[in-house]
């Protein structure tokens, strides 16, 4: 039988569990709840692994070691974290305005395409300086990514078309488009990849400094990481310190109030999705220029989708996106070696689920009350 939300009798003791809405919450509550949620999620993941016959302790220990065990693997973890910082930030920016950008994956691909076009279509000559080349690639990546965000933006702003589905559909379209260019236009010898880019198109990496600092030998962390951190900080500044960010947060909380305050929601819808797409596009450029050095079929193992989880875990704060991305980067890195292949995705799903389920504790308080009959 239904009863009020203000009361729910759980046991027939003199002790009663009372669930009531929270008036205000202490600042340490949110991070604590998130932490507990993640831990619980890992526990559940371990249980599932155990059920299907794996050894969860070995798996987790392996992950920890394979991701953070030595300077070398940590460097690899940072490499994996770099695109995640981009997509996580991209998602956080859009979600802050309640724009559900599920298309970060597609925007990432388009950004890679944009950067690739700059090189492969000869926009920049082969002997241009590294700085010019990389700059052109970044611009290309950002522009292509922003364009891919513009489409769902204008559709939503003008025609009220649901952006969840449009961004999602554009993911598949982007992948097909990039594949066309890879296979059909710039294919190297009929394989699923283009030629390797010239040296000037490579982002510098730590191992380049190996001659001066021997410790850096073999470290694959590249300048894209710094780039990503800078972009995240700038995004944070925009959201929390600038006038535009105030408007974005206001629209996200209450669009009608924002309209009443004179804020142009249509324009912001398009701009924010373009910003989000541009950031994700930069991620694609960074991956191309820093890791892959060519255009090929598999550019991303789902960075765009993982970005969603990261953004949510980071409570839509770009600064927190950075450490969370490093954590997930480690998970992805180590997860490649775990069988079966779906485990990282599974764990990500469990984490996200626990996170959103745990948010109820921010809204309600559970009290144990002594009740006299």
């Amino acid at each position, binding site marked *: 039988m*239904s009863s*009020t*939300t*203000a009361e729910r009798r759980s046991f027939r003791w003199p002790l009663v569990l009372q669930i009531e809405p929270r008036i205000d919450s202490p600042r340490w509550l949110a991070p604590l709840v998130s932490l507990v949620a993640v831990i619980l999620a890992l526990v559940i993941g371990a249980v*599932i692994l155990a059920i*299907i016959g794996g050894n969860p302790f070995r798996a987790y220990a392996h992950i920890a070691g394979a991701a953070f065990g030595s300077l070398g693997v940590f460097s690899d973890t940072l490499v994996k974290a770099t695109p995640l910082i981009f997509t996580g930030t991209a998602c956080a920016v859009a979600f802050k305005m309640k724009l*559900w950008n*599920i298309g970060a994956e597609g925007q990432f691909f388009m950004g890679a395409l944009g950067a690739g076009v700059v090189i492969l279509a000869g926009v920049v000559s082969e002997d241009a300086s590294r700085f010019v080349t990389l700059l052109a690639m970044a611009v290309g990546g950002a522009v292509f990514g922003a364009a891919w965000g513009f489409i769902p933006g204008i*559709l939503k702003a003008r*025609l*009220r*078309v*649901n952006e*969840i*589905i*449009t961004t*999602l*559909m*554009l993911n*598949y*379209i982007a992948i*097909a*488009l990039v*594949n*066309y260019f890879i*296979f*059909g*236009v710039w294919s190297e010898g009929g394989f699923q990849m283009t030629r390797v880019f010239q040296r000037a198109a490579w982002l510098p990496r730590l191992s380049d400094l190996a001659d001066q600092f021997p410790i850096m030998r073999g470290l694959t962390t590249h300048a894209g990481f710094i780039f990503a951190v800078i972009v995240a900080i700038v995004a944070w500044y925009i959201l929390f310190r600038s006038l535009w960010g105030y408007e974005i947060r206001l629209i996200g909380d209450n669009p009608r109030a924002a309209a009443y305050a004179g804020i142009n929601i249509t324009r912001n819808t398009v701009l924010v999705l373009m910003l989000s797409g541009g950031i994700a596009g930069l991620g694609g450029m960074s991956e191309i220029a820093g890791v892959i050095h060519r255009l090929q079929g598999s550019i991303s193992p789902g960075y765009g*989708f993982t970005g*969603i*989880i990261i953004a*949510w875990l980071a409570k839509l704060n770009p600064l927190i996106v950075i450490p969370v991305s490093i954590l997930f980067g480690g998970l992805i890195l180590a997860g490649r070696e775990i*069988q*079966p*292949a*779906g*485990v*990282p*995705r*599974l*764990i*990500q*799903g*469990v984490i*996200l*689920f626990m*996170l*959103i*389920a745990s*948010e*109820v504790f921010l*809204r309600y308080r559970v009290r144990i009350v002594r009740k006299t009959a």
Partner: protein
Amino acid sequence: MDPVIILHAGIATGTVLLFATIGEIFTERSGIMNLGLEGMMLIGAMAAFSVTVATGNGWLGIVIAMLAGGALSMLHGVVTIHFQADQVVSGLALTFLGVGLALVLGDGLSSAGTISLLPKLTIPILSSIPVIGPIFFTDQSVLVYVGYLLIPFSWFYINRTRPGMHLRAVGENPSAADAMGVNVYRQRYAYVLVGGLLAGLSGATISLAVSPGWFSELTTGGLGWIAVGLVIFSAWDPWRAAFGAYAFGALRRTILDIQGPQLLLGLRNPFFFNPYYGFFLQMLPFLFVIIVLIIGSREAVRKRMGAPAALGLPYVRGERGL
């Protein structure tokens, strides 16, 4: 490129979409949005395939698949109904969870063996109707006919029965329904479950009626998301959903067939001579969904129809009016 053949083949794929779409229509009519269709369908497909491989019994496969989809949907239900979490994010989480789980549990299935599809039927008199007969009633899987029956039944249930009226009430104005003694929580759980069961069935249809086998994520290949788009296009009406689903199925088949012949409508077929143009064909289904959404959104604005008024909003009992 015979249109009859294309439409005939399209019906099977369309049935996959039909089950998922109608299931989600039920869920959304009650006010809950479940975006996790892709995950539930994949689990359903995997479950159906593995059970059938193991037991040889396709019908058992269907049952398990539906239960799997239903179980997954209940996770979403608890989190969104009782914990009042954001429904969009929960649906996404469900997708990750479902896909991940399906990949993990289905590891190794692709080499597990083959199964035979469910029986196909030809309905005696109806199959002789010109044009319609060969397409709809000739040599179609049993599940297809189940789909045909589901359409009018769903429409009738929603619009002409008492429980259907309560369903609509809960999605339009849950506090009014609650005040009149309708158990909003229970109704929403029930219809989220219905959505999950049908999504599982949809997945089973893939394995047992369309393409037997396990191809990891390619098994569903985005069909779940297309179904979400179709729900909006259908304006939450089963008949329109059916139209969209079958049209889509036909489109898919067309894309496959169009790359075959050297001549297309008497002209040189670009897709035959440059196979890379096939990538553009791959985009078509997704482009189609976007176009369909645009049409659907404009029409809704024009005709003043729209989503169930309380869709996506969590319902809290006894919230004091402000």
